[in-house]
């Protein structure tokens, strides 16, 4: 019986289409903005699309991209983010990030917050992110 459960657990792990790791966000105060970063791996053979992210800690949550153009840094909202088959996409500082606007609470270092990532094929994935200095 134990072997069956182990097999099923392994099968479930194998079938998990997306993995999200190393999620963290910046400290910020209530009413201000923060950014969420993580790595998402698409284990499937088809492209996966992150459609949006939801959270209770911010009034607005948007997918954003920081960019550099003619020596100037800018930021813009993006509609969605496509993760290629069998690849990892990094939401990282100075690049793609999840923008958290009008925070409902203070985000202090070492606290954790919950987010829901909504994918086109994989559905909703719940993650925990830690507030890190940065």
């Amino acid at each position, binding site marked *: 019986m134990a072997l069956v459960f182990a097999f099923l657990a392994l099968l479930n792990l194998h079938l998990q289409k997306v993995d999200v790791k190393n999620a963290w966000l910046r*400290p910020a105060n209530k009413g201000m903005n923060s950014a969420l970063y993580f790595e998402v791996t698409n284990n499937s053979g088809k492209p996966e699309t992150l459609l949006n992210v939801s959270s209770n800690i911010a*009034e607005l949550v948007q997918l954003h991209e920081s960019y550099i153009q003619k020596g*100037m840094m800018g930021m813009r909202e993006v509609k969605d983010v496509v993760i290629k088959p069998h690849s990892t996409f990094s939401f990282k500082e100075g690049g793609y990030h999840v923008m958290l606007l009008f925070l409902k609470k203070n985000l202090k270092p070492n606290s954790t917050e919950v987010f829901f990532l909504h994918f086109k094929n994989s559905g909703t994935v719940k993650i925990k992110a830690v507030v890190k200095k940065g």
Partner: protein
Amino acid sequence: MNHLKFVSNKIILFVFFSGLISFLFFGCAKKFPEQKDISGNNYVLLNQDSAKVNFPSDFKGKILVITFIYTNCPDICPMTTHNMQMVQQKLAKEGITGVQFAAISFDPSRDTPKVLKEYAEVRDMDLKNFIFLTGNKKNVYSIIHEFNFIAIPGDTTFVDKKYPVYFYTHTDKLFLVDKQGRIRNEYRGSKVNSQKLISDIKSLED
């Protein structure tokens, strides 16, 4: 013959020492050419405690590491202030004093002293030699222009008819100013090589 050899040796020594002296003087000068003297003008700003600060005269005699930010920036500006915080901590560990860190807001209408103080507090910043500054728009933008820093506000859009969302497009730089108020070097703020910055600071200490 011996006389000729003596003269030849003297010439070689002269050329060697001339070259060495030139290298020491001009080589160092090239490493830190004076980019601009900003000590001529003075502007009144407010720090995170709402105390008046005369910029840059209040910092004369200190090496200044300075950048420009807006606190609603979630990505690039915090990277820059965090890099400065790391350098501040490394210098403190080495017992190097006399270096002042400063971040001036280019969004003064929103970045009040209270907002700046909260920004520093939530990041556990050591405000002994790290100062956040704001002020009236005219003064702030006069300083920004002195540094050839550019910050352009985008249009404010209203999401769900109630959330005013706005962002700036801005230069990603921090600057090193010497004790006499002269800009001596500039770096990419969000990706600064902290070892290089520390090395440059030490070079200006002497």
